[in-house]
């Protein structure tokens, strides 16, 4: 069977991992970093992804997309409250958000697909084989539409998504593999955009999720916003400048807020400096850890309510939890660790890098699916109740939250009017009494043969598969015939739209490859310029003047080529520079060898 990779498609960062000799490993990129920032930028030369795209956040904010995960499976109305925070413009089409990048608009699954493609290529380069199958992680509290959107993203990226797996449970697999733990564990997963808590029972290789809860709109992003808002207010009052109308400065502030937050996980205070527009100088201030903590305490408290609810649903008190595991970058904050420790009364585990643990777990699940690992099995649950709208706009639950998946429920439908030929069914997800307060998943019309009222008997089966994704079947109990149902998702792409996007992605693949080549070549050029300039500084006295001149000429030629858009031209100048600098390199090598030998006895070197 072809290799299956595990992918953590995160709000802030994404990673890909695979299983090698019974151990999961993350796959590094050209820069040796395993993390790919979940950022996509539209440049004049095409779309770019990851570290290179991140540089465009401040340079080109209107055309640089970050945190796209927050928009997966959502309509515009769902994110109305936070639109002001995003510099790129959002519209809606057919219940799905679209992101405007230059002339074109993209759905969140298309943007996510670009990140997935980057990971796919990275895995292919590292493993030297074509990768077409993947396990992708999602927040445990993702609803059906958000899961489906993630699956669509995989398809658009040319990946068969064999399983959608929940992030906290993925993390538990990575821990379980390492520690061979038994007992009850709580996984507290606080990431860039989402919060999840899962409570699991581990016994003889079975990972049974007892309960899960969370908030798909609560993460490090929200913490950054609090800090950024503080800076904005202070800049306004101190300098009389309103930066909220400057998208590029807003990004600078956001990144500075994030930097301060990260810094304060180690330091007790940190210096903040933000350059103001129109030569108005700098905004500077000191931010202490105490100040940060009181600023964001409310956000941290909001993670504790889902924890208590999950415990209640699992029928457990905090002291029944044997181990607590921390996942996600936001758990690096000391205040988070402290509050978690207080709630559960034990020191949380964070031995595995919280940025990597989810991807590692996804790789373990991939290995289970490919038949490699056979002693471990994950029994996950559906996070939200599934039901249908009944008379009076009330939701009638069919599958309760925290039901182990796969799960199914059957419901019998009939008619109230003679000759009635259809019954409209509205599928909902959520915990509220009224249909309108829950998430609308889909609507469909059940076909009924025209008969006297109450005679037809149509049995509808609602199925939630191991991915937490819903499907519906119907059969006529009188005739035994099953009917196919066309379900129209309320917040999702239609099959046709997904197909179109897959086609588009092939069309644009060529442009993307060129853009990618250009960026990589530019990065290589940049690295060579930096190292050559350093060597030249150090070794100027070792070579002839004409050699120095030649190197300088080649350096400036490369710098010029780097500005251009032709990767082949850059490549040629790189070769030139390497050629010109060869004597310098050799001279420096000899020099360092000579100096290394000084002060040593002859006997040491012979």
């Amino acid at each position, binding site marked *: 069977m072809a290799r299956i990779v595990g992918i953590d498609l995160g709000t802030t960062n994404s990673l890909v991992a695979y299983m090698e000799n019974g151990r999961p490993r993350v796959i590094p990129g050209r820069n040796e970093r395993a993390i790919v920032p979940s950022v996509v930028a539209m440049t004049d030369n095409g779309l770019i992804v990851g570290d290179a795209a991140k540089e465009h956040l401040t340079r080109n904010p209107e055309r640089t997309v970050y945190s796209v995960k927050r928009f997966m499976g959502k309509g515009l109305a769902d994110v109305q409250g936070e639109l002001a925070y995003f510099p790129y413009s959002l519209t809606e089409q057919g219940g799905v958000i679209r992101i405007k990048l230059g002339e074109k608009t993209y759905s969140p699954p298309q943007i996510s697909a670009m990140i997935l493609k980057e990971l796919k290529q990275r895995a292919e380069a590292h493993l030297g084989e074509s990768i077409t199958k993947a396990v992708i992680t999602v927040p445990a509290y993702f609803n059906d539409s958000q899961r489906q959107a993630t699956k669509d993203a995989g398809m658009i990226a040319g990946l068969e998504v064999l399983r959608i797996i929940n992030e906290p449970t993925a993390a538990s697999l990575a821990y379980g593999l390492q520690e061979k733990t038994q007992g009850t564990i709580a996984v507290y997963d606080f990431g860039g955009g989402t919060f999840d808590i899962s409570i699991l029972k581990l016994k003889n290789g079975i990972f049974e999720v007892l309960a899960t809860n969370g908030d798909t709109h609560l993460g490090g992003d929200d913490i950054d916003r609090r800090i950024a808002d503080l800076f904005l207010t202070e800049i306004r009052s101190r300098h009389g400048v309103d930066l909220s109308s400057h998208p590029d400065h807003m990004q600078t502030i956001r990144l500075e807020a994030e930097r301060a937050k990260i810094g304060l996980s180690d330091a007790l205070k940190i210096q903040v400096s933000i350059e103001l527009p129109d030569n108005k100088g700098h905004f500077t201030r000191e931010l202490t850890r105490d100040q940060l903590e009181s600023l964001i305490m409310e956000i941290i408290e909001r993670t504790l309510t889902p924890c208590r609810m999950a415990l209640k649903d699992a029928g457990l008190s905090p002291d029944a939890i044997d181990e607590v595991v921390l996942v996600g970058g936001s758990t690096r904050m000391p205040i988070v660790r402290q509050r978690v420790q207080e709630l559960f009364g034990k020191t949380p585990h964070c031995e595995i890098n919280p940025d990597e643990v989810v991807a590692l777990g996804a790789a373990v699940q991939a290995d289970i699916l*490919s*038949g490699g690992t056979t002693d471990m099995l994950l029994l996950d649950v559906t996070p939200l109740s599934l039901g249908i709208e009944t008379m009076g706009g009330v939701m009638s639950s069919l599958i309760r939250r925290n039901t182990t998946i796969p799960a199914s429920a059957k419901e019998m439908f009939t008619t109230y009017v003679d000759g009635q030929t259809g019954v409209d069914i509205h599928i909902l997800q959520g915990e509220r009494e009224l249909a309108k307060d829950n998430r609308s998943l889909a609507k469909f019309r059940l076909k009924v043969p025209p008969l006297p009222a109450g005679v037809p008997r149509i049995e509808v089966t609602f199925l939630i598969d191991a991915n937490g994704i819903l499907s519906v079947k119907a059969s006529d109990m009188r005739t035994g015939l099953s009917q196919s149902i066309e379900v129209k998702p309320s917040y999702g792409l239609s099959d046709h739209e997904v197909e179109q996007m897959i086609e588009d992605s092939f069309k644009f693949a060529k442009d993307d490859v060129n853009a990618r080549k250009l960026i990589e070549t530019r990065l290589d050029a940049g690295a060579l310029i930096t190292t050559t300039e350093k060597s030249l500084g150090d070794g100027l006295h070792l070579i002839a003047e004409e050699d120095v001149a030649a190197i300088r000429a080649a350096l400036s030629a490369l710098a010029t080529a780097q500005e251009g858009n032709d990767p082949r031209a850059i490549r040629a100048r790189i070769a030139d520079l390497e050629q010109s600098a060869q004597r310098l390199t050799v001279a420096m090598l000899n020099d360092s060898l000579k100096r290394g030998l000084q002060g040593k006895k002859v006997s040491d070197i012979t």
Partner: protein
Amino acid sequence: MDHQHTHSSNPRELQMARSMCWHCQSEVSGEYFCDRCVKVQPVSKETDYFTCFGFPRRLTIDPGKLEAKFYELSRAFHPDFYQNKSETEQSISFGNAATLNSAYRTLRDPIQRVEYLLDLEAGSVKEIRNSPPADLFEEILELQDTLDEYRASDRASDAGQQLRTTLQAEQQTLEERKRDMETQLQQLFTDWDLLQDRGEATSQARSERDRLLKQMRETLSNRTYVKSIINDLVATIG
């Protein structure tokens, strides 16, 4: 919306027993895998949850044994282990795993377990009346009055505080009642299991069976009622 509830596992709707392997057409004897071609077999619609777990139709179940069997069957049926198999096998695995999960959820909880048994033995329990137990009728009427009064009162006032204390005491009493009913159910479980173990086919045994089912149904109905009153109380006084 036009629909009516039915119990997903109503045995009266079950049809046609499986006896032949879907793959090699050889006879399958009871277990979940074909003896000859080792292909997974769909759990028959006729298989009730007790049988699915290989348990007799008894109301006292050892949670440890139930869990062990659940894990064992999960390893046999879970879709994770059918990724490389045919589409038919994947679909059987999906269906079997969903059935297994429903079965475990039902049998694990004593109340759901007895409701399920009543369903198997005597038809749907969903039609159980939802009226107050006869001996609690007066008390509950009074309680409803107090609740109304409390809702209308100024909670911070002395009168409000006093009503609250009364309601808290009432909640205690009802919780105790509920526990009594659960103890009573426990006894009925034991009686039922003993009767089943004796396996008599006499008319006396039959009337004993009917009496036990009737009592279980009544106790369940009373408990459901009391539970909803308690929930109401908790929601009001917090």
